[in-house]
C-alpha cells in the first residue's frame, strides 16, 4: 500500500541536498566552549533585583506563620511576596482548560500540597540578602499526615494516561491466551520517582514595561509559554517577548512554564523592577515535574515454539492530589511484540507530591524496562536465547492496531548491534562467564522503540538579492542541536550553502516552532523549514520562468531545481541563473515564503510510525559485594533520516546513559513520615558520572521512510533510554542468575 505524496512534499533529496546528512560541528559550539553562550540566568538588566523562593518543608497542611518582618528587616531585602500581597492574576492558577495546561502554585492561598511548594518570595538587592531573608521567614506550619508511596492512598482508574490515551486497551482474549499457553510467566517490577535534574536550574529574568513583559527563561515551548503567561496576566501574547536561545537541558521539565518562573514575573510586577529568580537545586524537587513511580505486572503466555499467545501489562502509578498526569507505562506493550492477545491497563493513586510530568520518554522508559525484563524472563522460561525469542515474536504489523509500519529496520538493528557486540558467543545460562578477576560477567539485550510524533510548527524563509538567505522559526535548542540541524535543513530547503544562511531561533517573536519534546521537534520544525524553503523557491522560480529575459523562461516551476544559490533547468542544467540575478531583474531586495510542519493525517491513519533500536549491554558484578559495573554498551538505531550523524550519535549516547541511570542509579527517596524527599540534591540523587559510563557505541542504521514526513525524519531524542535500561537489567540477570524486579537495582537485591 502506498500513499501519493503531493508534489510540493516530494522528498528533499530529489531536489537538492548537500547539508542534510553532514556531520557538521555545532553552530553554537564556539559560544558554548568559550562561556559566551548566554543562558537565562546570565542576563542582568539595569536595576535588577534578586528573588529567592521560600519553600515548604512539609508535604501537606497550611502555613500558620511567616516572620515577614524579620525578613524585611534584613539589610538589602526590598520586599517579601506572600499570598497577602501577591499581585492579582487574570486567571485562577488552578484553572485548567486543556491537557497541556497544568495547575500552578502561585501563592494563591496558604495551603500546602507538596514539599518544596513555594510559600513566599523574598526580593532583595543581592542574592545573598534574598537568600538570608528567605531563611529568616522561619515558617510555622499546621501539618497533616502525608500520603506517600504507591500504597499510600486508594487507587482508581484514571480517565486517561499520558496525553489523552485511554487507561485501558485490549485486543484478543488475554485470559484465553494465557490458558492455552505452554509456558507462562508473571512478574511485577517497580520503578521509582525520578527527577529531571537538568544541569541548568529553572531560571527567569523578568522585566515589565507597563503591560509589556520581557523575559529570559529556558523554554521547550515558547509559544505555549507565551500563551500561558498571557492568560495568567490578562495581557496579549504579543506583548510578551520570551528569549530562550539556549536551555541548559530540559528533558521535559521545561516544556510548560512552571510555577516558580511565573513567580519571578509576579515578583517583578510587585516591585516594579526587573527581577531574576533562579531555583536552588533542592527546589527543583517539587514544582517542575518528575517521573512518577510505577509498579507494573506483566503476564505472558508462550506456545511450545516460543510464540507469545498473550501479553497482559498492568501499571499502577501516582499523580499529585490536585492535578492529572499519569505515566502511561503499560502502553509500551502496544507496539513492540506480536501477540494475538494484548491487554494493558492503568490505575493510580494521589499523593502529596508535586505533579509528575513528561520526563524523557514518559511511559516509554518506565514501560520498556518492565516489558524488556519480562520478555527476557519469558525467553528464559522457554529455554530460548533472548535475541532469538525477540526475533521469533517480531511484529510485522503494529500489534495493538494491526497497522503496517511506515518503516521498520529493527531486524537490521538486531543484526548490526549483535554482530558488533559479539552476542553469538553468549552462553544461554546465567553465571557462566566469570572474568579473570573473578567478576561475574553478563550480557543482556533490550529492544528500543519510540513513536515518531509530530506537532505543529511554522517557519518563514527569505531570499535576498545579495544571494544570501534567512530562515526564522522560534525553535528551542536544549542540547539536541537545533541550531545546527535546522540550519542544515534550511540550507537545503533554500538551495544554499549553509554559510549563506542566517538562521534565527529561540525567541517568541519568531514563527511558532511548536514544542521541543516528544522527539518530534526536528521532524515538525524541520518540515516547517523545508516547506518555507520550498515556498520561497517557488516564488523565485515564478519570477524566473515567467520572464523572457531569463534562461529559465518557460521551464515552469516544476521544471527547475535549486542548488548552490542558482536555479537550474531540470532538462538542461547548462541553463541556470543565480538568485541574485533573478531578484535584481525583478527589482526586489528580498522575497519571502512561509511553511508549516504538521503531521499528515491520512498517512498517520494508514501507518504505525515508530523508531526502533536494539541495545546490548555487558555488566560485571562483584560476586562478594554485589557491586555492578556496566562495561560495554552497543546500540543500533533506525529512526528515519539522520540530519547530522555527529549530533544524532550524541543524542543516542545521552539516551543510553539515561538508560544505565534508570537501571542502576536514579531514585528519589521519600521519607514516609514527613513526605519530604530525602535526597533532593546532586550528591545523593545519583546520576551517572563519567567514571560510571563505559565504552558506548551507537550504530546508525539506514532507514528510508516515505510516509512519516517528506524529509523522512522520525526522532532520536528519547529512544536511547528505552531498550538500554532493560538490557542492563537483563545483563545483571545473566551475570548473577538474580532477576532484578525493582529499580534502580540494589546491591542487597543481588546478595539476597
Amino acid at each position, binding site marked *: 500500500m502506498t500513499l501519493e505524496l503531493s508534489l510540493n512534499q516530494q522528498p528533499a533529496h530529489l531536489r537538492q541536498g548537500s547539508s542534510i546528512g553532514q556531520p557538521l*560541528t*555545532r553552530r553554537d*559550539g*564556539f*559560544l*558554548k*566552549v*568559550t*562561556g*559566551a*553562550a*548566554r*543562558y537565562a*540566568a*546570565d542576563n*542582568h538588566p539595569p536595576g535588577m533585583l534578586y528573588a529567592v523562593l521560600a519553600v515548604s518543608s512539609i508535604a501537606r497542611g497550611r502555613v500558620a506563620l511567616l516572620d515577614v518582618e524579620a525578613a524585611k528587616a534584613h*539589610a*538589602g531585602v526590598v520586599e517579601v511576596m506572600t499570598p497577602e500581597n501577591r499581585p492579582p492574576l487574570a486567571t485562577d492558577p488552578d484553572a485548567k482548560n486543556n491537557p497541556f495546561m497544568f495547575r500552578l502554585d502561585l501563592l494563591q492561598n496558604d495551603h500546602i500540597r507538596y514539599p518544596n511548594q513555594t510559600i513566599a518570595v523574598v526580593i532583595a538587592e*543581592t*542574592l*545573598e540578602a534574598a537568600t538570608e531573608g528567605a531563611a529568616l521567614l522561619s515558617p510555622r506550619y499546621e501539618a497533616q499526615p502525608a500520603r506517600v508511596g504507591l500504597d499510600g492512598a486508594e487507587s482508581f482508574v484514571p480517565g486517561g494516561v499520558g496525553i489523552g490515551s485511554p487507561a485501558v486497551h485490549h485486543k484478543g482474549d488475554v485470559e484465553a491466551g494465557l490458558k492455552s499457553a505452554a509456558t507462562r510467566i508473571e512478574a511485577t517490577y517497580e520503578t521509582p520517582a525520578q527527577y529531571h*535534574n*537538568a*544541569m*541548568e*536550574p529553572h531560571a527567569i529574568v523578568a522585566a515589565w514595561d507597563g503591560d509589556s513583559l520581557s523575559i529570559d527563561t529556558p523554554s521547550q515551548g515558547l509559544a505555549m509559554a507565551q500563551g500561558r503567561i498571557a492568560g495568567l496576566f490578562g495581557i496579549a501574547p504579543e506583548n510578551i517577548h520570551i528569549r530562550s536561545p*539556549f*536551555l*541548559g*537541558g*530540559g*528533558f521535559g521539565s521545561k516544556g510548560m512554564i512552571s510555577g516558580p518562573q511565573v513567580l519571578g514575573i509576579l515578583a517583578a510586577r510587585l516591585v516594579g523592577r526587573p527581577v531574576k529568580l*533562579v531555583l*536552588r*537545586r533542592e527546589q527543583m524537587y517539587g514544582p517542575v515535574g518528575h517521573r512518577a513511580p510505577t509498579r507494573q505486572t506483566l503476564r505472558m503466555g508462550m506456545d511450545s515454539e516460543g510464540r507469545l499467545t498473550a501479553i497482559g501489562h498492568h501499571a499502577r502509578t501516582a499523580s499529585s492530589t490536585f492535578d492529572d498526569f499519569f505515566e502511561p507505562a503499560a502502553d509500551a506493550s502496544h507496539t513492540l511484540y506480536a501477540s494475538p492477545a494484548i491487554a494493558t491497563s492503568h490505575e493510580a493513586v494521589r499523593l502529596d507530591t508535586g505533579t509528575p510530568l513528561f520526563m524523557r520518554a514518559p511511559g516509554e522508559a518506565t514501560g520498556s524496562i518492565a516489558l524488556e525484563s519480562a520478555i527476557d524472563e519469558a525467553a528464559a522460561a522457554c529455554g530460548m536465547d533472548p535475541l532469538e525469542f525477540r526475533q521469533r515474536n517480531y511484529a510485522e504489523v503494529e500489534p495493538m492496531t494491526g497497522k503496517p509500519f511506515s518503516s521498520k529496520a529493527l531486524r537490521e538493528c538486531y543484526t548490526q548491534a549483535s554482530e558488533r557486540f559479539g552476542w553469538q558467543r553468549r552462553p544461554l545460562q546465567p553465571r557462566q562467564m566469570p572474568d579473570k578477576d573473578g567478576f561475574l560477567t553478563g550480557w543482556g539485550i533490550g529492544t528500543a522503540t519510540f513513536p515518531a510524533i509530530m506537532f505543529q510548527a511554522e517557519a518563514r524563509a527569505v531570499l535576498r538579492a545579495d544571494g544570501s538567505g534567512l530562515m526564522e522559526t522560534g525553535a528551542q535548542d*536544549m*542540547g*539536541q*542541536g537545533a541550531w545546527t540541524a535546522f540550519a542544515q535543513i534550511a540550507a537545503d530547503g533554500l538551495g544554499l550553502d549553509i554559510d549563506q544562511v542566517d538562521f534565527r531561533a529561540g525567541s517568541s517573536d519568531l514563527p511558532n516552532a511548536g514544542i521541543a519534546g516528544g522527539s518530534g521537534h526536528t521532524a515538525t520544525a524541520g518540515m516547517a523549514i523545508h516547506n518555507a524553503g520550498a515556498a520561497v523557491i517557488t516564488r523565485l522560480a515564478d519570477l524566473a520562468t515567467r520572464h523572457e529575459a531569463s534562461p529559465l523562461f518557460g521551464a515552469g516551476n516544476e521544471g527547475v531545481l535549486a542548488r548552490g544559490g542558482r536555479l537550474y533547468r531540470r532538462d538542461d542544467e547548462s541553463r541556470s541563473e543565480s538568485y541574485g540575478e533573478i531578484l535584481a531583474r525583478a527589482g526586489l531586495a528580498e522575497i519571502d515564503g512561509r511553511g508549516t510542519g504538521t503531521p499528515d493525517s491520512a498517512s498517520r491513519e494508514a501507518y504505525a510510525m515508530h523508531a526502533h533500536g536494539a541495545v546490548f549491554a555487558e555488566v560485571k558484578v562483584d560476586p562478594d559485594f554485589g557491586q555492578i559495573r556496566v562495561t560495554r554498551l552497543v546500540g543500533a538505531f533506525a529512526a528515519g533520516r539522520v540530519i547530522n550523524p*555527529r549530533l544524532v*550519535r*550524541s*543524542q543516542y*549516547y*545521552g539516551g*543510553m*546513559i*539515561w538508560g544505565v541511570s534508570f537501571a542502576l542509579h536514579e531514585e528519589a527517596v521519600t521519607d514516609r513520615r514527613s513526605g519530604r524527599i530525602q535526597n533532593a*540534591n*546532586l*550528591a545523593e540523587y545519583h*546520576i*551517572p*558520572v*563519567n*567514571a*560510571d*559510563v563505559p*565504552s*558506548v557505541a551507537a550504530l546508525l542504521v539506514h532507514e528510508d521512510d516515505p510516509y512519516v514526513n517528506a524529509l523522512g525524519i522520525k526522532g532520536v531524542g528519547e529512544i536511547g533510554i528505552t531498550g538500554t535500561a532493560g538490557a542492563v537489567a537483563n545483563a545483571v540477570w545473566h551475570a548473577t542468575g538474580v532477576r532484578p524486579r525493582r529499580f534502580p537495582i540494589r546491591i542487597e537485591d543481588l546478595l539476597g
Partner: protein
Amino acid sequence: MTKTTIPVHLDINGDRHTLQLEPRVTLLDALRDRLGLTGTKKGCDHGQCGACTVHVDGERVLACLTLAAQAEGRTVTTIEGLAREGELHPVQAAFLEQDAFQCGYCTPGQIMSAVACIREGHAGSDEEIREYMAGNLCRCGAYPHIVAAVRQAALEVQS
C-alpha cells in the same frame, strides 16, 4: 539598615579588580553577579556538580564553595580566560570537534576540569580520564565524547 563589606582584590584572567563585597559572597557569585563573567555556571551551589569549576593558582576549584575573599592575592582563571587572542585552547577546540557537550551548561566546568586534568598528568588513558573527570556532572550524557575530547587535547598539549 547596615551592611558590612570588605574590599576584595581579585586577579581574574589577567585583569585586576577591586570589589567591595560582603564577606559571605562566593567567588562564583562575585564572578557572575559583580563582574559579569557568566561563563562559569551554577548547577547546585553545593560543590556537587562541578559546573562552577575555575582555576585558582592553576588548580581546579569549585567557585561555589570558595568565598571571593579566599581568592584575594591569588590568580583566578575562568572559561573566558582560556582562549588566547581569539584562538581556542586545544581543550576547547577538542570539545567542539568531538561534540563533547549538548546543552552546554556543564561545559565551561568540564573544560576547566579537563585543562587541569591534563596538566595534572591524569589523562594517560580513557580509564584515568573517566576517573579524574568524574567530579563534573553532565546530565545530557556527553561523557564518551568528553573522554574523546580530553584524550585528543592531551595529545595536542603534550606534543
